[in-house]
Structure formats: structure tokens, C-alpha cells
């Protein structure tokens, strides 16, 4: 049985059946690829986390105006100069990424669904919700509406993880999640929650 290396030209007909072991591996690998492919549509139907959302184009000026209305309607406080907003359950809520801050601070309730709209008024930003490690791209000119349900109470952070300029590493926002009765998590518990967060 002839052999040749990869630097030699194969002679004549090389379109030949492979050894059964090789064919078995190809079949197994193909089967695994089908499993990989099936998982994604499956999770759309059975799983709780998908990036589908409701997606639109938007003019930054219009989005900014809408967010300001949203803030005005539901403002309950202020922290570091950023308004804290407590919207009703099931509502459309708006977050702006603008170098180098996230506006507003959202106060949400555990177990409640909202439609969280994400957009930027200037350059690309990265929405990274800490410590749950939920990450989405925030693109200027686009409104990414994600139906979200917070799963546990806490005092969360939004870290910007897309380079947006010299102040990129100072761009941190805040999300407060109250428990299902509407109470904020105590400060000491809050510190423990964020520090001990493991993947």
C-alpha cells in the first residue's frame, strides 16, 4: 500500500474511500456538529437567555429625548449626580451610554419583567452587567430592546467593556434590584454579594 507525505503530489486517482476508522471519526464529528447546531434553536424555545430582543433604528437625539421623559416620569432619587429611576413592572425602560457615563440608575424589582432599551448617543459602548456577567453591544443609531427579568436582589454595576475613548475605564453605572417586596438589599449584604460573585 503506497504512502506519501503532504509535500508530495498524489498520483493518479486519489479520490478513494477512507479506512473505516477515519470514516467512523467523520461520522462521530458530524454528529457532534449537529448537536452543536441544534442547541441554538433549541435554547430559543426552551432556554431563558437569548439575544433576540426587539431591535430598531433610532436617531440619537430622539432616543435621548425619550430617555429624559422616562427619567422625569419615574425619578425617585439621585446618586453621584445621576438620577435614580423606579419604573413600573412590565414597562419599557431606557438606558443611555454616553462617554463616559450610563444614564439613569435603574431601580428594578426581582422577578419582574421589563423591556430594557440600550442605545448610545456617541460611539460604541459595551453593556456588561456585573456580577451576573450579562454583555451586550450598545451601538449609536440602534435601539436594542431586551426583555429582562432580574433573578435576585442586589446592588449591581454596569461596566463599559467596549473601548470608547480615554475615559473608558471610568464608565461605570449602577442598577439596584430590590427584592420581590420592593426592599433594597442592605449595604453589608451588598458588598458580600459583589465580592463573592463567582462564575
Amino acid at each position: 500500500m503506497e504512502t506519501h507525505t503532504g509535500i508530495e503530489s498524489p498520483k493518479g486517482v486519489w479520490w478513494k474511500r477512507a479506512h473505516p476508522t477515519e470514516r467512523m471519526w467523520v461520522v462521530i464529528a458530524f454528529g457532534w456538529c449537529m448537536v452543536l447546531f441544534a442547541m441554538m434553536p433549541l435554547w430559543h424555545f426552551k432556554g431563558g437567555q437569548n439575544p433576540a430582543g426587539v431591535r430598531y433604528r433610532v436617531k440619537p437625539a430622539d432616543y435621548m429625548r425619550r430617555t429624559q421623559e422616562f427619567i422625569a416620569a419615574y425619578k425617585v432619587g439621585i446618586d453621584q449626580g445621576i438620577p435614580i429611576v423606579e419604573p413600573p413592572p412590565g414597562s419599557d425602560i431606557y438606558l443611555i451610554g454616553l462617554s463616559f457615563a450610563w444614564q439613569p440608575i435603574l431601580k428594578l424589582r426581582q422577578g419582574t419583567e421589563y423591556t430594557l432599551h440600550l442605545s448610545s448617543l456617541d460611539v460604541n459602548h459595551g453593556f456588561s452587567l456585573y456580577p451576573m456577567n450579562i454583555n451586550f453591544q450598545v451601538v449609536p443609531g440602534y435601539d436594542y430592546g431586551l426583555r429582562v427579568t432580574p433573578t435576585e436582589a442586589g446592588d449591581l454595576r454596569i461596566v463599559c467593556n467596549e473601548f470608547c475613548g480615554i475615559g473608558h475605564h471610568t464608565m461605570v453605572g449602577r442598577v439596584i434590584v430590590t427584592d420581590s417586596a420592593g426592599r433594597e438589599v442592605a449595604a453589608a449584604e451588598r458588598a458580600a454579594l459583589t465580592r463573592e460573585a463567582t462564575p
Partner: protein
Amino acid sequence: MTTQVMHQDFRTCPVTGLKVHRDAERLIRANAVAATVSLLIGGIAAVLVLLTRWQAVHLLPAHWFYRILTVHGMSMLIFFILFFEMGILYFTSAVLLNSRVAAPRTAWGAFWLMVGGALVVEWAMWTGRADVLFSSYVPLRAHPLYYLGVILFAVGALVVTILFFATLVVAKRERTYQGSVPLVTYGGATAAIISVITLGHGAGIYIPTFLWSLGLMEVDPQVYRMVWWALGHSSQQINVAAMVAVWYLLGALTVGAVVLNEKISRTAFVLYILFISLASAHHLLVDPGMGPAWKIVNTSYFMYMAVLASLIHGFTVPAGIELGQRLRGFSDGLFGWLRRAPWGDPGFSSMVFSIVVFGFVGGITGVTFGTEQINIIAHNTLRIPGHFHSTVVSGTAMAFMGLTYYVIPLIFRKQIAFYPLARIQPYLFAGGMLVFSITMTFAGTFGVPRRHWDISFAQAPFDVQFNPAVDLLLGVMAVGGLVAATGGAIYILVTVSSVFFGKPLEAPVGAAAGVPPGIAAPPRHLPDADRINEELHSPARGLWGPAPGTLALVAVFLLAFVIYYFVNWKLLSFVWKVG
């Protein structure tokens, strides 16, 4: 232009018997030198970036960090890798086919265009005119000359790619080889075809962006991201194809690795050609502009057909090595072929580390994060650079470094200087990068962002406290990176010394000091290899087949893949409901 080729335009290689065109040789040398210079710039940048992300050291101030990070990305992912690949294109076309290079003057023009473009881009970055990172996402704006420099470089690379195909045509017409091109050349052609797809999209996005930087037109940020990543990620797929071609090449040179079945291996390359570029969608899975159907079809390389291709090469490459070793008489037990392989040959060790780390770490993490939904817990965290350092650095760059130890004697015709250092270089580089990639990926699972100057968030309005494990991980990551950088520095020292100051290699080549075993004593199969091969393929061996050691290894690999993949789905299920 004359097609009359003079006999003295060629020399005959005393090791392989191939007829080497002198222009091909000079072009390979020039591109190898340009690649090494780019690697040096990118490597210095790597150390500076690493010592900054190691918060305990935090070397660079913020604006220099983002600037040097841009330099690192461009110099490594575009200049180093593409210059080296141009050399591979000339080798797999002209040299492996005993042919002259088509249009050598054009080839040199393209080379200088690439050098010119690279110099313009480096100037723009170092002078602070392009603090936009490797991806330069619009509306972040760089100086127009930055974009122009990239365009010039890409045009040069496209010309070289076209000349690759022109050389294939010339070789066929002048009958410099018989039958089909060798498998390694086929891999080169795969890389070249993906290169056309890549550079075409590159032109499609950099030209409008250049005009935008001059204020002459608008560029939509989402369209930019989509088309740019067709350049950005597909360029890495050129690297995958080239790397696999180099695996087959080094296998042949170091241990006489055989091709088990041309149809199967070439099918895998064809699957790459048809589908691998689609997975540029990996970077766009949590973007607002495209819907789930587009994301699922594209990120899966069309139902994972290109992943099937990698899984095929993942078997045929080591199986070919195993078979080559068994045909040389190293056939004891399940893994005798591996234990008794030339681990002191830097070409061999580089190749093996490249295969193992690319497969186990790079491939598995890449397919996992490239899942539409799992990407939600991975996007823009350190998991992403953790992944690509295990593919393009521990995989492609490692393989290219291993190849260099054969290029130095075969094409530069020099002995390898500091050969004892060269022998340990792959171990240092691969070991360091393995630690680096794994700790970086693990830090990313805690949510640590990529491209970020300060994760103590000292200047941010709200505090962010990462798990204390993160500091430890980043410290270990930095140490791993420094070990790898030492390996990289040794590589540069060895190659520069060999090329410019090394002892010339005299024919016939004996066991001289600075010559890898594959050249000093080329691997030869036993005289009755055909009979041994027949036995290895006999049905009496059952499904274990001719390469049982490899079968055991790929079974372990598949198990690791299945476990890692489903663990990540589990992790995803713990976060908020998002839809």
C-alpha cells in the same frame, strides 16, 4: 515579459530534491524578515500591555495603554502574521511545485507596498493619531493616513495572493509537477482563497472609512462592525488554513508523516473555503443590527461544517504523524510513536504544542463562546482575548515559529545560531502562552472586561469589587505572558542571528551543530514500509485502525469538548432571563 527561464534561476535543494526558484527564495526571505520585525514591535507592545493589565504593576498611563494596545493588535494580527503568510504562499506554490514565481517584479512591488503601508500605520499609531484599537470602530476616528496605510498593505497582500494563483497556473502549464498539487499546497490555496474573501471585505470597509475620516461620506456604525469583522475574523481563518498546512508540512519534514486519505483531508480544506468566513458573526452575536436567524446560520459556519473540517484535521494530522512514526519502526504500544518522537527538534515540538493548544483550548473555547446565547456571558470579557491567544498565538504563531527552524537551513541556507536555545524555545513559548491563555479566560468568566486600563475602577463614580481570585489570576497571567515573551525574544534572537550572522550550510548536510534532525538525517520509512502499512490497515485491527494512539487522544478531546460546552450552557442558565 519572457517566459524563457534560465537554468541558473533555480537551485536544487540537497535535502528535499525540490527545484527552488531564486526569486521565490528571495521573496520568502524578505517576507520572513518583515514578519520578524513586526513580531518584535508587537512583542515589545505585548510586554508593555501585560505589565499594565497586571494591576500590581500598572506600568503605562491610560492613553499610552490604549495606544500600545492598538500597536500590539495591528503589528501582530495583521503585519507579523500576513508577512509570514506571504512567505508561505511563495513556498507552497513556487517551491513545492518546482516552479518559477509568476511576475517577480510585481511580487517585489507588492512587497514594498506592504512595507510602506505598514510603516505608515505604525507611524500613525505611535504618534497618537490612531488611538482607536485594532478594530477602529466607527465613530471612533483616526487620522486618514492610518486607514490609507492599511489599504496599501491590504492591496499588496491581495496582489501577492493573486500571484500565488498565477504561479499555480504557470506551474501547471509548464508541467513542473504531475497529478494534483501536494496537500500542503492545497492548504496554501485554501488560505489564499480565504484571503481574497477577507481582503475584499477589508477594501469594502476601509475605503469608505478612509473617505469618512476625510469628511466625505457617512459610515453607519453597525454596518462598519459587520463588514469589518468579515475582514477581522476571516483574516484569522486565513491563519487557521495556513497553520494546518504548516502542520502537514512540518509533519512531513520532521517525522515523515503520511497523508491517510487525500479525499478526506482535502474535503476538510474545501469546507473551510466554503464556510469558514461566515463565522465572522462570532463578534456580532449580541449586536442590535442582525436577527437570530442570521446569527445562528453564520456563527455556526453553516451548521458547523467548518468545525467538522477542523475536527477532521484534528484526526488526520496526528494520525499521519503516528503512521509516519510507525512506518519508521517506532510502533511499540499505544503511544510509543509519540514517546519516541523527536522532541528535541524545535520544528516537531512547536508543531505538537500548536496542535494540542489550538485544539484543546482555542477550538473548544471558540466554538463555545461562538454560540449565539453563550456569547451573552462572554462578549467583550477577557474570555475573548483568552480564546484568541490560544488560537492565533499558541496555534498559528507557534507553528510558524517551528517552521522557521526549517526555513533557516532550507531557504536561508544557514545553520541555526544558539541551537540549544532554539530547542527549548517552543517549550517556553507554548508553556507560557498556555498559562497566559487559561488564566486570562478564567478571569473573563468573573466578568473582567477586555481592552480596559483599570479594573480597580479608581476613577469611576461607583465601586466594582471583583472576586479576589481575579487579582491572583491576572498576576499568574502576567507571569505566563512574561515566560512566553522570553520565548518570543529567544525566537527573534535565534532567527536574526542565524539569518544575518549564521554559519552557512554546506551541502551535503551532515549532523552539523545548528541543524534540526529532519535535515541532518531526514526521516525515512523502513524498507518494508508498504507491507507494514498494509498490516496497519488490515481489518484484523478492527476499529482501532492504523492510528490507535490518535484515536485515543481525539476521544479525550471530544470528551473535554462536550463537558466544557454543556458546563457553559449551565452557567448561562443562572443569569437573568433575557430575550
